[in-house]
C-alpha cells in the first residue's frame, strides 16, 4: 500500500487519538443515572458536594483507559484486536475469512472526522465478539478496507473455499453446482484480475473478494463511477413511513415508561377524569377517540422522524461483486454486502403499506445480517425496479444470456411473474381457519341464550362484525397465497417465488441453489383436504420459506421442479426392502 502507516505490519496499533474525547463523553452519557444518583445521595445525606465530581472523574478515567487498552494489528494472515482493562480479550480473525468491512459514524464521530469500522466474517457475533475498530480516521478508510479485503499474501488463497466457509458457494449463481469451477477461483486469485468476464469467475469467493477489494480500494466517489445505482431514496417516500406502525413501536415504550413512573395514577386521580363519569357516553367516546387520534398522530410523526433520520439519502450501489448501501442523517452507515452471499430477495407488503401502493425490499443473504434491508418503505414501482436490477446485477450478467431487453425481462421475472394460486381446497381452508373465532363466539352466545339469559343486541352486532372481518381476512389471505417456479434459462438458476399472508404479506424470491432441504408437512386436516405445506429450508434469510396449503400432488412436482432429482426416483425393478403398509401410504397420498 502507498501509505506505510496502514501497511500490513506486525505492530500493534492504537485507535485514533481523538477517541480520547469520544469515550469520556459517551461514558458520561451512559452513566447519567449513576451521576444523578450521586447528586441525590449527596444532597440528601448532606455529604460533601464534590462526591458527584469524584464519580464523574472515575467514569472519565475509566473511559480513558479504553483507548489505552485497545489495540489492533493487521498481520500477514490474520487481523487481531486486543481490548479490555480487567478482562483482556484478543479477537483474531483469519484474513481469508473477512467477508465485509462496514463503516458507520454517529454525530460525534462525524464531528471529529472518525468512523467505526466493523469487520464481518459471515458468522453471527454479538457486540462483545464483533471485530470493530471504534474510532479510526475517516480518511484512512479506503486504505484500511483495501488492506483488509486483500487476500493474504502468505496463505493459499484457495483455503477459504476449500475448508468450506459458510459463504463460499461455488455455483450459487448462474448455474447449479459445478464441481469443475472449484479450481478456477484459485487460479483467478493468483492472477488477481478483476472479475468481470467469464461465466464461472464469480463462482469463487476469492474472485469475488478481489473484485470487492478493487471496488473498495477507491474513494467513495470513485465507487460511484464503477457501480450502478440500483436504489435511490427520495425524501417524499416519507409518506409511507407511518403505514408500518413502527411509530407505535417507538411511542409504545414511552407510554409504558410513563405508566411505570406513575402518570397513569395521576391521570386516574385527576379531577378531569373523575368527572368523566358524570358526562354522557357520547362525551366519553369522543374523549377516547380524541386520545387515540392524538396517539396515532404522535406515532406517525415518530415514524416519519425515524424514517428520515435512518434512511436519509439512502443509496444502493451495485458494482458487480458487492452491494454498497449508504445513508443516514446523523449517524451515517456504509454497508457492503458480498453478492456471492445473495440468495434472493423479499418484497414485504404489510396491509396498510400495500393499500397505499408501497412495499419494502429485503435481501436474502447467508451469513451475518441474513435479512438485510435494501429499501425501506417505498413505492412498489421503485421496489420492483431495484429488485429487477439486483437480479440482473453484474454477477448474474453473464455472456451466455441474450442481450437486450429480453434478458433483463427474464432476469427480472422473479419480481414480476404472476403467481399460481393454490386452488379451491386451499381457499376453503383459509375460510375455515379465519371463521374459527366466529364459531366459538356464536356457540358462546347460543349457549348463553339457551341457558335462558338475555343476550344484548350489541353482542350479535359484534358477532356480525367479527364475521365480516373474518371473511375479508380469509379472502385476502387466499388472494395473497401463491407460488411460482421460474425454470432456469441456462444462465440463471431456477427461482422459487412464494407469497403468503394478509396483514403481513411477504413475497419471497429464492434461487434454487439457496434451497438446502425440503419438508413436506401435513396436518391431519390438511391430509383430509389433500393439501400440504412445503417448506424450503435455506441457510439464508428466514431459514425457512413455506408454500402453504398446496395440493399434495403439486407439492411433489414443485420440489422436483426446483431441485430436480432430489426426491429420489426408485427404479421400477428395485424392490423395497420392507413392504409398505397400504393404509399409511394411502393416507399420505390421498388427494
Amino acid at each position: 500500500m502507498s501509505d506505510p502507516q496502514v501497511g500490513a505490519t506486525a505492530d500493534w496499533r492504537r485507535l485514533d487519538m481523538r477517541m480520547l474525547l469520544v469515550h469520556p463523553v459517551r461514558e458520561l452519557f451512559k452513566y447519567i443515572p449513576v451521576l444523578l444518583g450521586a447528586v441525590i445521595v449527596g444532597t440528601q445525606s448532606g455529604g460533601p458536594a464534590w462526591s458527584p465530581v469524584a464519580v464523574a472523574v472515575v467514569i472519565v478515567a475509566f473511559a480513558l483507559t479504553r483507548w489505552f487498552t485497545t489495540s489492533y494489528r493487521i498481520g500477514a494472515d490474520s487481523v487481531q484486536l486486543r481490548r479490555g482493562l480487567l478482562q483482556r480479550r484478543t479477537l483474531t480473525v483469519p484474513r481469508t475469512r473477512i467477508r465485509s468491512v462496514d463503516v458507520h459514524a454517529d454525530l460525534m464521530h462525524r464531528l471529529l472526522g472518525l468512523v467505526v469500522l466493523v469487520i464481518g466474517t459471515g458468522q453471527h457475533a454479538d457486540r462483545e465478539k464483533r471485530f470493530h475498530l471504534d474510532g479510526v480516521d475517516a480518511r484512512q478508510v479506503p486504505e484500511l478496507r483495501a488492506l483488509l479485503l486483500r487476500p493474504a499474501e502468505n496463505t493459499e488463497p484457495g483455503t477459504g473455499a476449500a475448508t468450506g466457509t459458510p459463504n463460499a458457494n461455488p455455483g450459487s449463481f448462474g448455474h447449479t453446482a459445478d464441481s469443475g469451477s472449484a479450481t478456477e477461483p484459485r487460479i483467478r486469485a493468483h492472477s488477481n484480475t478483476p472479475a468481470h468476464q467469464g461465466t464461472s469467475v464469480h463462482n469463487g469467493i476469492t474472485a469475488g473478494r478481489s473484485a470487492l477489494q478493487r471496488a473498495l480500494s477507491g474513494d467513495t466517489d470513485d465507487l460511484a463511477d464503477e457501480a450502478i445505482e440500483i436504489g435511490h431514496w427520495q425524501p417524499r417516500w416519507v409518506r409511507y413511513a407511518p403505514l408500518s406502525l413502527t411509530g407505535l413501536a417507538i411511542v409504545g415504550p414511552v407510554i409504558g415508561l410513563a405508566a411505570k413512573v406513575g402518570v397513569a395514577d395521576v391521570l386516574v386521580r385527576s379531577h378531569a377524569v373523575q368527572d368523566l363519569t358524570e358526562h354522557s357516553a357520547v362525551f366519553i367516546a369522543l374523549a377516547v377517540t380524541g386520545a387515540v387520534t392524538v396517539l396515532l398522530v404522535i406515532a406517525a410523526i415518530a415514524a416519519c422522524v425515524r424514517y428520515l433520520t435512518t434512511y436519509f439519502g439512502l443509496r444502493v450501489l451495485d458494482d458487480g461483486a458487492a452491494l454498497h448501501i449508504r445513508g443516514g442523517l446523523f449517524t451515517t452507515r456504509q454497508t457492503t454486502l458480498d453478492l456471492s452471499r445473495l440468495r434472493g430477495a423479499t418484497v414485504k407488503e404489510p396491509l396498510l403499506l400495500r393499500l397505499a401502493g408501497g412495499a419494502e425490499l429485503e435481501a436474502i443473504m447467508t451469513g451475518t445480517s441474513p435479512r438485510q434491508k435494501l429499501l425501506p418503505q417505498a413505492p412498489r414501482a421503485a421496489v420492483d425496479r431495484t429488485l429487477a436490477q439486483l437480479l440482473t446485477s453484474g454477477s448474474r450478467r453473464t455472456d451466455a444470456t441474450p442481450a437486450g431487453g429480453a434478458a433483463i425481462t427474464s432476469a427480472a421475472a422473479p419480481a414480476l411473474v404472476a403467481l399460481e394460486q393454490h386452488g379451491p381446497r386451499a381457499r376453503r381452508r383459509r375460510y375455515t381457519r379465519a371463521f374459527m373465532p366466529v364459531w366459538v363466539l356464536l356457540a358462546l352466545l347460543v349457549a348463553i341464550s339457551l341457558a335462558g339469559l338475555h343476550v344484548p343486541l350489541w353482542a350479535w352486532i359484534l358477532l356480525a362484525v367479527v364475521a365480516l372481518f373474518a371473511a375479508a381476512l380469509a379472502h385476502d389471505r387466499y388472494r395473497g397465497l401463491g407460488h411460482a417456479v421460474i425454470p432456469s434459462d441456462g444462465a440463471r438458476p431456477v427461482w422459487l417465488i412464494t407469497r403468503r399472508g394478509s396483514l403481513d404479506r411477504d413475497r419471497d424470491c429464492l434461487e434454487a441453489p439457496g434451497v438446502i432441504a425440503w419438508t413436506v408437512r401435513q396436518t391431519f386436516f390438511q391430509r383430509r383436504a389433500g393439501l400440504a405445506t412445503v417448506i424450503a429450508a435455506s441457510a439464508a434469510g428466514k431459514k425457512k420459506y413455506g408454500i402453504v396449503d398446496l395440493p399434495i400432488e403439486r407439492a411433489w412436482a414443485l420440489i422436483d421442479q426446483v431441485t430436480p432429482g432430489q426426491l429420489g426416483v426408485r427404479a421400477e425393478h428395485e424392490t423395497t426392502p420392507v413392504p409398505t403398509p397400504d393404509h399409511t401410504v394411502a393416507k399420505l397420498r390421498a388427494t
Partner: protein
Amino acid sequence: MDHLKHVTMAGMTRSPEVSPARTISAAPAWRASRRAPLLWAAGPAIFWAFVLVGELVWVVLDGSHRAWALALVAATVVAAGFGVGVVPVWRYAVHRWEVTDTAVYTRTGWFNQESRVAPITRVQTVDTHRGPLERMFGLATVTVTTASSAGAVRIAALDLEVAERTVNRLTDIASIHREDAT
C-alpha cells in the same frame, strides 16, 4: 413481456415425469427399529402413570366428590390407552427413513406428518443421541444437520448398530462432497 410469459408458461406446463408414488421422498423404504413402539410408549406411560397415581390418591382421600374423581380416572385411562397403545403403533406405521447415495429421507409424525429430504452434499454434521429411555431399549437417534436451522433431519429410534452403520455411511459419503454447504 412476451418472453416473460413464455417463461411462466414453461413453468406451468412442465408435466413432472416423477409421479409421487415412485419417489423415495414420498415413501422411504426403511422402518424404525422393532422396539421403537416400546420407546414411544414408554415416555407417555411414565407420564400417565404419574397422573393416574395422583388421581387415585384423590379418589381415596376425598369422599365427597368420588363420582367426579372416578369419571376423571376413567377419562385418564382412555387418554392413556390412546397415548400408550395407539399412538406408538400409529407412529411406527408412519415412520420411515432411507439414506441413498445422494440424500437422506425421513417421514415422521402421526396426527401431523412430515416428510423431509436433505441432500448429502449439504450435510454439515451427523450426531448420534441416546437418552436414558433409548439406552434402555438399545436405540439411538441420528440427527443430520445442514447449514439451515430449518433443514435438520432426525432419524429417530434406530437400533444402535443400525445407527452406527448409518453415521459411518453418512460421514463417508459426506466426506466425498467437499464443497460448501450453504
